[in-house]
C-alpha cells in the first residue's frame, strides 16, 4: 500500500472470472504523512481510505472482467460500516464480488478483514466510463500487471 500515491492494493490472491470475485492483500504501511495528522501520537488508518481500498479492489475486478475497456469511477458508497480501527502495519484481506452490471454502471459488494475479523463491509457503485486517455489505460494495465490482476494477452503495459 502506497498511501501518498493512492495505490491501496498490494497483490491479488485470486480472481474468479466465472464467479466474478476477487481477493486481494493490502498492507497498511508502518509510516505515512497521513498518520501525522490522523491522529497525532495515535496513528490510525482513516476509515475513508479503507473504503477506498475496497473500491479499488472492486474496480480492478470490473476492469479485468471487462477487458480494461472501461474505467470505473466511484459514484456511490452504500451500506458502509467501519467496524474497527486499523493501525499502521496491519495486513488487510480485501474481497469483492460483482452484484450487478448495467449500461454504463456497475456495483460490487466488498469486505475488508484483518486477522479474520471484519473491518469494513460496503457496496460500491461505479460509472463505467471510456478511458479518457490511452496513456491512462496503459498506466492502469501496468499497475494491474504489477499487483497480479489478469491482463489480456498482447496488451501493452507501457
Amino acid at each position: 500500500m502506497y498511501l501518498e500515491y493512492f495505490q491501496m492494493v498490494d497483490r491479488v490472491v485470486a480472481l474468479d472470472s466465472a464467479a466474478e470475485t476477487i481477493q486481494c492483500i493490502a498492507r497498511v504501511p508502518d509510516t505515512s504523512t497521513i498518520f501525522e495528522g490522523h491522529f497525532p501520537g495515535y496513528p490510525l488508518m482513516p476509515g475513508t481510505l479503507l473504503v477506498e481500498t475496497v473500491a479499488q479492489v472492486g474496480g480492478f475486478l470490473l476492469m479485468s472482467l471487462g477487458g480494461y475497456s472501461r474505467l470505473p469511477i466511484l459514484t456511490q458508497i452504500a451500506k458502509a460500516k467501519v467496524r474497527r480501527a486499523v493501525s499502521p502495519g496491519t495486513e488487510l484481506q480485501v474481497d469483492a464480488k460483482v452484484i450487478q452490471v448495467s449500461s454504463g454502471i456497475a456495483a460490487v459488494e466488498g469486505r475488508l478483514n484483518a486477522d479474520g475479523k471484519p473491518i469494513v463491509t460496503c457496496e460500491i457503485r461505479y460509472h463505467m466510463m471510456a478511458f479518457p486517455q490511452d496513456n491512462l489505460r496503459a498506466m492502469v494495465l501496468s499497475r494491474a500487471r504489477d499487483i497480479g490482476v489478469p491482463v489480456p494477452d498482447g496488451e501493452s503495459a507501457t
Partner: protein
Amino acid sequence: MTEFNQETFELVAEIISDICSINRADITPDTHTVDDLGIDSLDFLDVTFDIDKRFGIKMPVEQWMEEVNQGNADAAEFFVMKNLVTRIEELRAEKAA
C-alpha cells in the same frame, strides 16, 4: 407491438421519484424524464440500475444516448415516460421469449 403497461409505469415512476427526489405526482406518461424532470445523466444511470434490477433486464441506455447524440433518434423516443415504459416491456418480452 408492445403496449403501454400501467403497472410498469407505476413502478418506474416510483423508482425515479425515489432516486431523483422528484414528486411522484409530477411524473405522468407524457413526462420527459430529461427535459421536464431535469434528471441528469448520473441520476439516470442510477435509475437504469434499479430498473434493470427490478425487471431483470439490461436497458441499453448508453446505446440510446449515442443514437440521440449522433442525431439518429429523438430523445423523446427513449426518455418520455410512456416510451421508456414501452421499451422496458419490449426488453422484458425479449427476455421471456
